């Protein structure tokens, strides 16, 4: 048996824990730099807010309905997520953290009825301990658990926990193809065109014909709906293949100086992440472009890819490669809105020395990186940094409405009143 635990409106729920006055009010959380809506409370979903809505286009609704607008507070969300996941692990050792607010749980040795009882206990513990409401779906496969979870969310009478019943047809019947785990928008369209509208329709389709008209994943999904396990718990995260660091600027960037500092910062953070995961990169991709929304300014978009020989995770090598790649494609006279660095073709293999580089140089670089990471982890990120990343503040995120980092900063603790 599998269960899927999914936090309800996670970011909005986090915002409410230390600010109970936000309960029942429409609330939206914005992306980095306060650009677009990335999360909504139920109340703002009901007002029609969609994920991805640029907030500047919603000004009227925000004013009319007193919508609470918050910048994203990942320090808080990350800490609350950790607490939720740790609580889940007390109920089962086999947990796949699927995203910041979702986890698959393997429930072995528990019969159907007991599964539900234990998951209700888990849900109650998470709610009491962390204040985060979660929904839990239980089924024979991950796809069914996800489907039951969807059902639990939609039907309040389930008390937030639903299992796939012995005869699952009715529950499959009331699940639309779009809401099946792993069936994207494209496939949904194609399925509807051939008269497949619900999960039950898909489950009843012929196995081979699904494979022929779609692919093996779609076929596995259909089989999982019938209760055959194809997708297992993935506990060791698959090694990443690429690593992207990008962000839109608080205000448009027009000079090479500012752009190069931004790219150097991205390169720095990407390199740190690489070292943190003991990986090296073989290729590097840089890009920068003007606003996608602004139709009056002249537009430009530039990108370049270079090879890193030998593959590396050394900050100054990666900064140099990024700037060398960006310089020839830089054009002035534009208001750039976003820039990024992507590291591609990552591997954990030992760095092979080419004929031309000296092992002494590499050993020296490595020692320097160990020192750099040590200082930055004990004294705060960015304490030691390369001058190329600059001292100006263009890279600082525009986060005007961020709530305090209640659980991770001593000087931002929630205040409780001893009054009245």
């Amino acid at each position: 048996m599998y269960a899927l635990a999914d936090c309800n409106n996670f970011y909005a729920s986090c915002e409410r824990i230390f600010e109970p006055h936000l309960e029942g009010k429409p609330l939206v959380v914005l992306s980095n730099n306060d650009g677009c809506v990335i999360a909504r409370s139920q109340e703002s979903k009901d007002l029609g807010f969609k994920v991805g809505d640029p907030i500047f286009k919603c000004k009227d609704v925000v004013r009319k309905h007193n919508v609470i607008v918050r910048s994203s507070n990942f320090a808080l969300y990350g800490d609350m997520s950790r607490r939720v996941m740790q609580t889940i692990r007390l109920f089962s050792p086999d947990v796949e953290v699927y995203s910041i607010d979702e986890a698959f749980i393997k429930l072995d040795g528990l019969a159907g009825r007991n599964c539900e009882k234990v998951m209700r206990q888990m849900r109650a513990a998470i709610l009491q301990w962390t204040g985060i409401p979660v929904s839990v779906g239980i089924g024979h496969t991950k796809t069914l658990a996800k489907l039951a979870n969807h059902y639990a969310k939609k039907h309040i009478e389930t008390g937030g926990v639903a299992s796939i019943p012995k005869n699952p047809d009715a529950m499959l019947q009331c699940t639309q193809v779009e809401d099946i785990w792993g069936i994207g928008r494209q496939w949904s369209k194609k399925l509807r065109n051939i008269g497949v509208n619900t999960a039950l329709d898909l489950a009843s389709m012929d196995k081979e014909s699904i494979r022929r008209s779609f692919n093996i994943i779609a076929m596995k999904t259909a089989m999982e709906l019938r209760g055959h396990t194809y997708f297992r718990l993935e506990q060791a995260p698959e090694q990443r293949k690429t690593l992207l660091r990008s962000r839109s600027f608080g205000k448009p960037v027009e000079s090479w100086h500012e752009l190069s500092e931004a790219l150097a910062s991205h390169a720095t953070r990407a390199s740190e992440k690489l070292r943190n995961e003991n990986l090296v990169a073989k290729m590097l991709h840089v890009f920068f472009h003007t606003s996608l929304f602004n139709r009056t300014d002249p537009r430009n978009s530039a990108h370049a890819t270079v090879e890193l020989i030998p593959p590396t995770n050394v900050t100054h090598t990666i900064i140099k490669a990024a700037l060398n790649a960006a310089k020839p494609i830089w054009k002035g006279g534009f208001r750039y809105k976003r820039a990024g660095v992507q590291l591609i073709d990552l591997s954990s293999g030992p760095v092979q020395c080419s004929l031309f580089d000296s092992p002494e140089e590499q050993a020296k670089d490595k020692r320097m990186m160990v020192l750099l990471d040590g200082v930055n982890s004990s004294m705060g990120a960015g304490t030691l940094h390369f001058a190329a990343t600059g001292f100006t503040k263009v890279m600082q995120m525009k986060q005007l409405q961020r709530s305090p980092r209640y659980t991770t900063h001593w000087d931002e603790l929630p205040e409780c009143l001893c009054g009245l």
Partner: protein
Amino acid sequence: MVEELRLPLIGGRVEAGFPSPADDFIERSLDLNEQLVANPIATFFMRASGHSMDGAGIHDGDLLIVDRSITPSHGSIVIAVIDGGLTVKRLRKRGMRVSLIPEPNTLDQGAYVPIEVGEETDATIWGVVTWSIHNIQCTR
């Protein structure tokens, strides 16, 4: 919540010649978390503000340790949500009657009134305060 424990460095470097006689007796140094935080997952820190709980040993600016996994009982000091705000009170249960009691210094009594929880006042318990850490060094 800090979970890592700081371990003492094993000393007695070989080159020095003399092994430290304490080497065989090295123990972990004490970690305050063990004493103050019973359930790290459910424990949150807060800052007290105001004087209504001075009599209970909670002073303005004190650091409070709050455990959400403890079920509040008669006499617990709790974080209560009243009118959407977080407040500190002592919980009193008498039969069906539940009230939230301020506990100021004797001199200030009368300045604060107990809150009867019922139809008129909606209050929920956010968590149970387990420790108050008071800095006796500086005067705020």
